[in-house]
């Protein structure tokens, strides 16, 4: 089983998540614990591509690493500073635009309506994702369970994007997603056992922007992505909270149980994504 590179990478990432997230609990506060999430993403990248790409990066797949790294550092700085809410929202809008611009740059010399609409969609969709992830991380109602809900949303986003990427001609994106999900699962496990609120700006921007860079690469560079299935990813950050309000009486489920249920419900749109892919690409999935 370990001969399968995807399973091996996922296993290493899970162990890394357990170790790093465990060690982060020795340090007071949640800043270091939050930084473990982008570290897991970057480690998953290295496990997948078997390299730390040269700088400046050549090609979109190499840019993914530096986008995640830069965004994680910005997020880490925000976690250290007080009163950063406005900056975080501003960055949630600016970062997706920068990512679309940098990844898609080789194609923008011949800008047409389709490409403009796609780039605009990626920017606005990316902004919606980061905005919501930041809300999960900072809203007082969610604060206590932000780490579980936020990590679950990131895991659901990657699990949903993995088959989209595979059909889009990027099996390595699938591998990166699966490795990152395994590492994030280890963090979520620690948060259940010994909560530390490990979902700050470094996690939101580091992992979020890394995921956006992957999405933009498959969409703009490999150019085989199913845009409808991709658009359904936007449901994931909202599905947990909306589902919880519709299905669960607030007084009956509270605290940790509610957080786990919200996190689980966030994964529901994955079924929708898979159903859409099956309906639209039966030949590829049969």
């Amino acid at each position, binding site marked *: 089983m370990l001969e399968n*590179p995807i399973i091996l990478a996922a296993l290493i990432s899970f162990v890394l998540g357990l170790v790093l997230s465990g060690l982060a609990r020795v340090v007071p506060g949640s800043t270091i614990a939050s930084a473990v999430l982008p570290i897991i993403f970057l480690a998953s990248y290295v496990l997948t*591509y*078997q*390299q730390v*790409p*040269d700088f400046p990066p*050549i*090609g*979109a*797949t*190499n840019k993914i690493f530096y986008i995640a790294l830069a965004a994680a550092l910005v997020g880490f700085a925000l976690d250290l500073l007080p009163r950063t809410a406005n900056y975080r929202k501003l960055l949630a809008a600016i970062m997706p635009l920068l990512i679309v611009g940098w990844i898609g740059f*080789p*194609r923008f010399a011949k800008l047409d309506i389709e490409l403009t609409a796609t780039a605009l969609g990626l920017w606005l969709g990316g902004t919606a994702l980061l905005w919501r992830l930041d809300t999960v991380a900072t809203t007082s109602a969610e604060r206590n369970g932000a780490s579980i809900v936020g990590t679950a949303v990131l895991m659901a986003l990657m699990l949903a994007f993995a088959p989209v990427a595979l059909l*889009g*001609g*990027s*099996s*390595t*994106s699938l591998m990166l997603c699966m490795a990152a999900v395994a590492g994030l699962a280890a963090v979520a496990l620690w948060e259940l056992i010994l909560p530390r609120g490990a979902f700050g700006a470094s996690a939101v921007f580091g992992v979020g922007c890394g995921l956006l860079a992957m999405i933009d*690469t*498959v969409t*703009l*560079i*490999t*150019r*085989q992505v199913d845009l409808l299935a991709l658009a359904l990813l936007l449901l994931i950050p909202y599905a947990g909270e909306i589902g919880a309000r519709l299905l669960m009486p607030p007084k009956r489920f509270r605290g940790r149980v509610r957080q786990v249920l919200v996190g689980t419900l966030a994964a529901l749109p994955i079924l929708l994504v898979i159903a859409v892919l099956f309906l639209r690409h039966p030949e*590829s999935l049969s």
Partner: protein
Amino acid sequence: MRLTLASVSMITALLTSATAGRAADYAIDPTHSHILFTIEHLGFAKIVGLFTDFNGNISFDANNVPGSKLNVTIKTDSLQTQFAPRDKDLKGADWFNVTEFPEMSFVGTDFVKKDDHTGTITGKLTLHGVTKPVTLNVVVNKVGQNPLDKIDSAGFSARGTLKRSDFGMKTYLGAIGDDIDLIIEIEAKKKS
């Protein structure tokens, strides 16, 4: 008069000699040329791929091989492996990344003659935005007039190996081989 004839004869001889020493320029005939590669898949078999869109020029003189020139440009989007889903994957950002790197090129820099029919060409291969030296073992199959179209032609077979990781293409190393074997068959026609 005798002096004049001698002069003409001498000039003619010199011109003939100069012409014989000048390399002939050829253009690759894509309809009779093939650029293939093989790469190991999980240790079981070698997958064969080929590029169908390429062009190039050769300057070749059998009597002055080191003075030869070669440049070939390959359109990466023309990749085929007889399995469309794999082609889609290979053209994507993880492998050849045809959107960002629509062309790969080989420029010969060092031409070495071993015997009348064999030699090596070392050149700079640019793939995936990375330029590295690659050496090809070359057999000169035939240089002469094509009996069908009466155009002077030259035919070469070349073989070589490169490591894809040298060019930053490290996707699934281990499962998919690092060594890429090149099989190149070139027929080139003399430029008029």
